[in-house]
C-alpha cells in the first residue's frame, strides 16, 4: 500500500512539474529559515560539552547601589561582600562561583613578546562549573586560591604563541607585567561559549578590602549559581530576591538592588529587554511556518479541483473519507520531506557561512580567533528531530484544510467533476 502511495506521489510530481517545483522551493525556503532559527536557539541554550550545565545556571545581574534618601551616588556593580550576602546561602544551589571583573591585559614572556589577552579572575568553584579540558597540569586548588598565590591557568594557544610549546607548567608568564606561575594548560575554547570563554585564568584576592563606596556595596564582581536541578532555577531566583531584602535591612543609609538574574536563555538573547526570548523564537517560527503554509494550501486547493474525479472514484469503490485524507496527506508529506531535506542542507551551509553573526555572543566578537564550530553541533539527534517535526507540522498546516474540503464532497458531485 505504501509502495503504491510512493509510486503515485512520484507520478504526481512528474505530471505537475510547475506545482512541484514551487512547492519544493517554498518548503525548502521555509524549513531553512525555521531550522536556522531553531539551531541558533539550540546551540546557544542547550547543554553543550563545555557548558553542559546550562539548564541549571543562574547568572547574576549587575547589582546597583545608591544613597537611599536622594538617589545620589548611584553606582552599578557589586562587591564581593554584597555578592556573598546575596548568593552565599541559597538552599537550592549546588554551588556558586564568583568572578571578579574580567579584563584584557598585555600577556607574554617579556615587554616585547606579548599581546593582549582576555583574563578572568576566578575562584576554585569555576572549575566545577565548566567542563574545561586540561592537557597539562591542573587547576589551582583551594590552598593556592585562599593564599592568593600568583598562579595562572592558560590556554593551549597562549602557551604555544608565547613559549612555542605546551609543556609550560611551572614556567612564569607575565600578566600585565606581573609574573604568574603556570599551573595548568587548557584546550582552546571556542568563543561560542560566552560564559566559559577566556584565555588566562588567575585567582582573585579573597581578602582584598572592598571599596568604601556605598557601605562597601560597590565592586566589580559577578556570580554564577548552579541550581540543584533545572526545576529549581525559579526557586533559586526567589531565594536570591529574598537575600537582597535581608541585605538591605543591614544597610544604614544605602540601598542595594539586584534587578535581574538570568537563566541561560535570558542571558543569551535579549538581555536588555523584558521579553521572554523563548516565546519570541516560538512566535517567529510559527509566523515563518504559517505564511508559506497558506501559500501551499492555496495551491493545493486549486490542484484538488483537478483531482476531484479521482477522489470520487476512490470513494465509490469504498474508500472511507479518512483513508483518502491519509493518502493525500502522505503524498504531500513526501513532497514536504524532499523540500525539508534540501532546506536542512541549505540551513547548515548558511549557519556555517554566517556563523559569527548568527551564533556569536559578546565574547566572540572580541576574540579574534577561536570561533570554530564542530560539525557535530549540527548533527545532533535533537536537530534531526527538529527537522522532522518541522516537516510534519508544515505538512499538516498546509495540507489539512484543502484535503479535508476535497474529501468531504459528495461522491456524485465529485464524479461529475464539479
Amino acid at each position, binding site marked *: 500500500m505504501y509502495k503504491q502511495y510512493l509510486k503515485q506521489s512520484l507520478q504526481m510530481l512528474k505530471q505537475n512539474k510547475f506545482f512541484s517545483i514551487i512547492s519544493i522551493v517554498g518548503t525548502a525556503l521555509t524549513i531553512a529559515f525555521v531550522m536556522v532559527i531553531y539551531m541558533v536557539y539550540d546551540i546557544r541554550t542547550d547543554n553543550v560539552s563545555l557548558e553542559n550545565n546550562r539548564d541549571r545556571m543562574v547568572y547574576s545581574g549587575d547589582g546597583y547601589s545608591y544613597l537611599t534618601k536622594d538617589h545620589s551616588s548611584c553606582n552599578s556593580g557589586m562587591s564581593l561582600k554584597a555578592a556573598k550576602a546575596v548568593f552565599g546561602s541559597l538552599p537550592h544551589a549546588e554551588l556558586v562561583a564568583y568572578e571578579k571583573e574580567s579584563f584584557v591585559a598585555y600577556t607574554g614572556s617579556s615587554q616585547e613578546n606579548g599581546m593582549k589577552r582576555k583574563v578572568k579572575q576566578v575562584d576554585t568553584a569555576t572549575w566545577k562549573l565548566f567542563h574545561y579540558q586540561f592537557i597539562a597540569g591542573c587547576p589551582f586548588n583551594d590552598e593556592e586560591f585562599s593564599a592568593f598565590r600568583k598562579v595562572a591557568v592558560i590556554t593551549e594557544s597562549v602557551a604555544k604563541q608565547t613559549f612555542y610549546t605546551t609543556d609550560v607548567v611551572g614556567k612564569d608568564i607575565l600578566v600585565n*607585567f606581573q609574573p604568574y606561575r603556570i599551573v595548568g594548560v587548557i584546550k582552546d575554547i571556542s568563543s561560542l561559549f560566552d560564559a566559559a570563554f577566556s584565555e588566562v585564568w588567575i585567582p582573585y584576592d579573597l581578602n582584598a578590602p572592598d571599596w568604601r563606596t556605598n557601605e562597601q556595596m560597590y565592586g566589580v564582581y559577578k556570580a554564577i549559581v548552579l541550581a540543584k536541578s533545572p526545576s529549581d532555577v525559579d526557586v533559586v531566583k526567589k531565594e536570591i530576591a529574598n537575600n537582597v531584602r535581608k541585605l538591605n535591612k543591614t544597610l544604614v543609609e544605602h540601598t542595594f538592588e539586584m534587578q535581574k538574574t538570568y537563566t541561560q536563555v535570558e542571558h543569551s538573547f535579549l538581555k536588555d529587554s523584558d521579553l521572554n526570548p523563548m516565546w519570541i523564537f516560538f512566535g517567529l517560527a510559527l509566523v515563518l511556518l504559517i505564511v508559506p503554509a497558506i501559500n501551499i494550501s*492555496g495551491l493545493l486547493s486549486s490542484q484538488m479541483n483537478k483531482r476531484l474525479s479521482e477522489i470520487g472514484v476512490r470513494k465509490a469503490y469504498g474508500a472511507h473519507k479518512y483513508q483518502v485524507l491519509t493518502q493525500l496527506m502522505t503524498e504531500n508529506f513526501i513532497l514536504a520531506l524532499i523540500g525539508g531535506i534540501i532546506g536542512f542542507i541549505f540551513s547548515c551551509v548558511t549557519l556555517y557561512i554566517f556563523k559569527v553573526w548568527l551564533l*556569536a555572543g559578546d565574547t566572540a566578537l572580541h576574540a579574534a580567533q577561536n570561533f570554530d564550530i564542530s560539525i557535530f553541533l549540527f548533527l545532533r539527534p535533537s536537530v534531526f528531530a527538529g527537522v522532522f517535526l518541522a516537516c510534519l507540522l508544515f505538512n499538516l498546516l498546509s495540507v489539512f484544510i484543502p484535503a479535508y474540503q476535497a474529501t468531504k464532497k459528495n461522491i456524485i458531485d465529485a464524479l461529475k467533476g464539479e
Partner: protein
Amino acid sequence: MIKSILKRIWVQRRGNTWIFSELLIVFVLLWYATDFLFVYAKSAFEPKGYNTEHVYHIAISANPNLIPKTSNEDSLNTLWVKPYNELIRRIKSYPGVEAVCYYFGTESYSEGTMFQCYVSKDTAHVVQANIFYVSPDYYNVFKIDMVKGRFTNWNMNEQPQPAVLTTDFADSLFRGKSEIGNSFSDYYESGKHYKVVGIAQKSKQDEYNRYDKFIYVPIEEYMIQANIPSTAVRVRAEEDHHFAETFMNKMRKRLQVGPYYLFNIESYDESKQIYDASKGTSNYIKSGSALILFFIINIFLGVIGTFWFRTQSRSSEIGLRMALGSSKRELRRLMISEGIILLNLAAIPAIIICINIGHADFTFNKLMDFTVLRFFICTLITYVLMIVMVVLGIWYPSKVASNILPVDALRNE
C-alpha cells in the same frame, strides 16, 4: 472594467480566500518588519553631532611596576603627568596625524556614561547632562557641529570655566533663552561656576540611540594625576591606510615613556562594529532584512502559483474573450488588474490592523516615537513592495494566458 473584476472576484471567493488571506497576513507582517528597519535606518542617517571618520582611539596603559606610589603633587607631576604630555607630543609628531586630544567622559560606542547635574540662576531647576572633560584640541579631532560660538579660552584655570553645551541641554537649562555668555553652576559642587562659550548641535553616543544632553568642559590637571585619560587622534584621509597596524609597530617602543606603554589602537569604525554587534543591533537589522526577503519571496511564489492555476482553469473563458476580439495586451492587463485589486482589497483591513498595532504600542519605539509620518512612509513602502511582487508574479502566467490559441481553449471545454 473594475466592476466586472470585482464581480468575478466575489463569484470566485472560495478560491480567492487563500490568496486574499495570504496577502492580508503578509501585508501586516511585512509592514511590521519594514517599520522596524525604518527606525534603524532613520537613526543611522541622523547626524551624531560629531565626526568619527578617520579617528582612532589609542589605549595607553601603565605598567603597574612603574606607577609612582606617591601623592606628592610635584612628584606626580614629574613622574606621571609630564611623561603623559610627552606621549601626546610624540603622537602628534607621527606622520599623518592631523590632531590629537585627550579626555574623560561618556565614550562613544561604549556602555559607560559620566553625567553631572547643573543649575542656572533658578536653583530649583536641575538638569542632568552627559559630561566630557576635554583638552583644547578635542574640537579638531571630533569636528563638533557648532550652532553658535566656539571652544574659546579653553583653559581650566579660567574662572568661571568655559563650557560648550548641546542645544537641547542649553534650552532646557536656560528655559529657551540660551545665549553665549550665560552663566550656570554645578549642582552638587557649590562654588563651581561655568560660562557658555559655545552651543553645539544635538549629540548622541552612537547612531542607534536617542539624542541626549551633552556638556564639554576643560580637562583638569588633577584628573590626569589620578587616571589615564582616553586618547584620540584624527588621521589625514590620504594617509589613512593600514594606519592602526603601522602605528602599533612603529610606536610601540617610542611610546614607552615613564610608566606608560601603548596597549592598543582601534579605529572608531571598528569600535562601532563591535559595539553594534554586542548590542545585537547588527543582528536585528540583518534578521529584519532576511524576514522581509522571506515574505516577499513567499508572496511571489504564492501569486505566481495561484494565477498559473487560474490560467489553466480559465482557459475556456480566455479563449472566448479572444474569439470575441480582445487583444493580447488587454488580456494581460485584465489579469494584472485582478491581482492589484485583490491586493487593494486585502490592504484595507491590513492597514487598519497596522494602525491598531501602532496604537497599542507594539511597535519598536525605543529609538523613535510612533508618528503619523513614520506610519505613512512605512505603509507606502510595504504597499509598493507588494504591488511589485504581485505584478511580477502575474506577469509570466498572464503571458502564457494571452498566448493561448482560442481554438484550443474552446475545444477543451
